[in-house]
């Protein structure tokens, strides 16, 4: 019943037949609604399938044919093992498409970000879930959610304009936008995800576990380490993997904060380039249908494969934990 009918001059009595009418109508349309909801559920699979199909369709001509004549050659072995990413838009025949440096750049930035974000995120989750009460807890949760709402381009800007010069001062790096900068920015971006999912996982552990542990004389640290962490393992793993997902797929922030330089990083202070940033930066300037364009879609497939492996591992690990419990 909408508010309008009850507050307007219409007498209340009349609302009864109307609601009955609506009920009848709902009964009649139930199968339709059921189908709609089912469609919503299946649409996720549909979208993933469609996205994969379109990315694959754009990439397949170079995967099979090796690129158009005179428009640069694509060679799978070169693609995976060469560090020379030279699209050469003015002499396409000389182009070299090797993603080794970009792949290692992506892995390095993500790895570094996780090294920083996982301890920070899980620590914050434990603090909020186990040590905080009342107003502090609510305030912290709201602020961390606010952190998650900051657009990635703003994070990139902070890395570029604020963190860059600070890193030059503190570390003596020749250039402030580098692997370390990108790692820190990505870590800050993944922390809110890890905190909120991790905190939910810890909250889901029944209080009886905590009470039992206390009655056995466990210290607070022992409760967290020996009882809560094993009990919430699946949820905490999901938290970390969601963080990894956020870090691998992030584009704008890393484009600005990592320096976007094609090289295999030798130290934390070297600028690097990631797969995602390469697609974002170059797709606007390529000839649609050309080899370069298609190779960018092959990179999209590589990213697909990486996230697929990460998710699959997560599923298998979680399942492994479950079956161990069942035994």
């Amino acid at each position, binding site marked *: 019943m909408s508010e309008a009918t009850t507050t307007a001059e219409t007498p209340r009595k009349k609302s009864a037949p109307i609601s009955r009418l609506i009920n009848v109508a709902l009964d009649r349309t139930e199968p339709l609604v059921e189908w709609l909801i089912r469609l919503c559920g299946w649409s996720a699979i549909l979208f993933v399938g469609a996205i994969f199909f379109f990315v694959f369709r754009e990439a397949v001509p170079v995967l099979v044919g090796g690129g158009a004549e005179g428009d640069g050659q694509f060679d799978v072995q070169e693609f995976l093992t060469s*560090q*020379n*990413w*030279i*699209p*050469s*838009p*003015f002499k396409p025949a*000389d182009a070299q498409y090797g993603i080794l*440096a970009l792949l290692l750049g992506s892995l390095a930035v993500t790895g570094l970000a996780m090294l920083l974000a996982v301890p920070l995120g899980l620590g914050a989750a434990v603090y909020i879930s186990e040590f905080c009460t009342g107003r502090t807890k609510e305030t912290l949760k709201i602020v961390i959610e606010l952190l998650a709402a900051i657009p990635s381009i703003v994070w990139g800007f902070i890395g*570029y*304009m604020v963190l*860059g*010069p600070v890193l*030059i001062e503190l570390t*003596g790096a*020749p*250039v*402030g*936008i580098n692997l370390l900068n990108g790692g820190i920015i990505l870590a800050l971006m993944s922390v809110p995800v890890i905190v909120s999912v991790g905190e939910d996982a810890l909250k889901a552990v029944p209080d009886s576990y905590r009470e039992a542990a206390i009655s056995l004389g466990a210290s607070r640290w022992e409760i967290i380490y020996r009882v809560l962490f094993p009990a919430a393992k699946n949820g905490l793993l999901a938290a970390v993997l969601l963080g990894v997902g956020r870090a691998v797929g992030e584009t704008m922030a890393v*484009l600005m904060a990592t*320096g*976007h*330089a*094609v*090289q295999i990083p030798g130290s934390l202070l070297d*600028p690097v*380039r990631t797969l995602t940033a390469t697609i*974002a*930066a*170059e797709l*606007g*300037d*390529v000839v649609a249908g050309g080899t370069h364009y298609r190779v960018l879609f092959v990179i999209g497939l590589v990213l697909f494969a990486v996230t697929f492996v990460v998710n699959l591992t997560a599923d298998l690990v979680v399942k492994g934990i479950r079956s161990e419990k069942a035994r």
Partner: protein
Amino acid sequence: MCERLVPTLLVAGLLLLPAVGCSRGGGGEAVITIRVEGSDTMVNVAQAWAERYNQLHPEVSVQVLGGGSGVGIASLIDGNCDLANSSRTMKKDEIEKATAKYGVAPKGTIVGYDALALYVHKDNPLDTISLEQLGEIYGWTGSITHWSQLGVDNGSPRRDTIVRVSRQAGCGTYSYFREAVLGKRKNPEYKLGSVDQSGSKAVVALVSKTPSAIGYSGMGYETPEVKMLNISRRTGELGIAPKPENAKKANEKERYPITRPLLIYTAGEPTGPIKDYLDWILSAEGQAVVRELGYVSVGDHE
């Protein structure tokens, strides 16, 4: 991610607009359409002119397409556009083809200059650099990696490594710098590992925050935190200051080395609305647009 993307979208939008107008209007005012095609470097300035001119003269609609200088000239010869933007002068065979088709020689008008300045941090003591040295810094297998190799003491040892700031592969600026500085090298390709930025202003902004950086960008982007270098053709020669008047010099020895004219070609002497449009481009107002976008204007509208 060059500045090209936005104009391209604008062009697409402009192309759609007349179609919408026609279906609704059905016989409004007569619209004169000027078709412009050519250089990707000039596409953003051409687009800005088109928009500004359309505000002043709503009856004239200017459609701008990119594609490259060669594409624009070929299109002019085929009669598919009225004005061809070109960041190079026409080749001999192109002039012959156009003359054969129209009976008059095509006319090129210089509407601005694209001059690339080399920017370093304001604390860098270097004043002059040669094209050869730039090639060794930016080029494939180039040997210069530290400021000390140029005889420069950049304050502290940790500032000695040269941070090369470059542009996104495919941008007009990227291609012109490659042609002008790396073109004579055995392998005219950029050395990998440069920090690639996706805008002219971003290059200058990064250099202003990085004491050991060098970067190239349009001459119009200077800020107080950076310094533009004098450029010499050969190491040891006197450098030429990156000033607009030096970019326009006719004598090649006195001219700033990394500069090229931006031209608009017409089939013969322009007439009617096309002449009006070209005259407006060369007016103070049209040339202000050139400077706004980081290029050097013609004439004395400084």
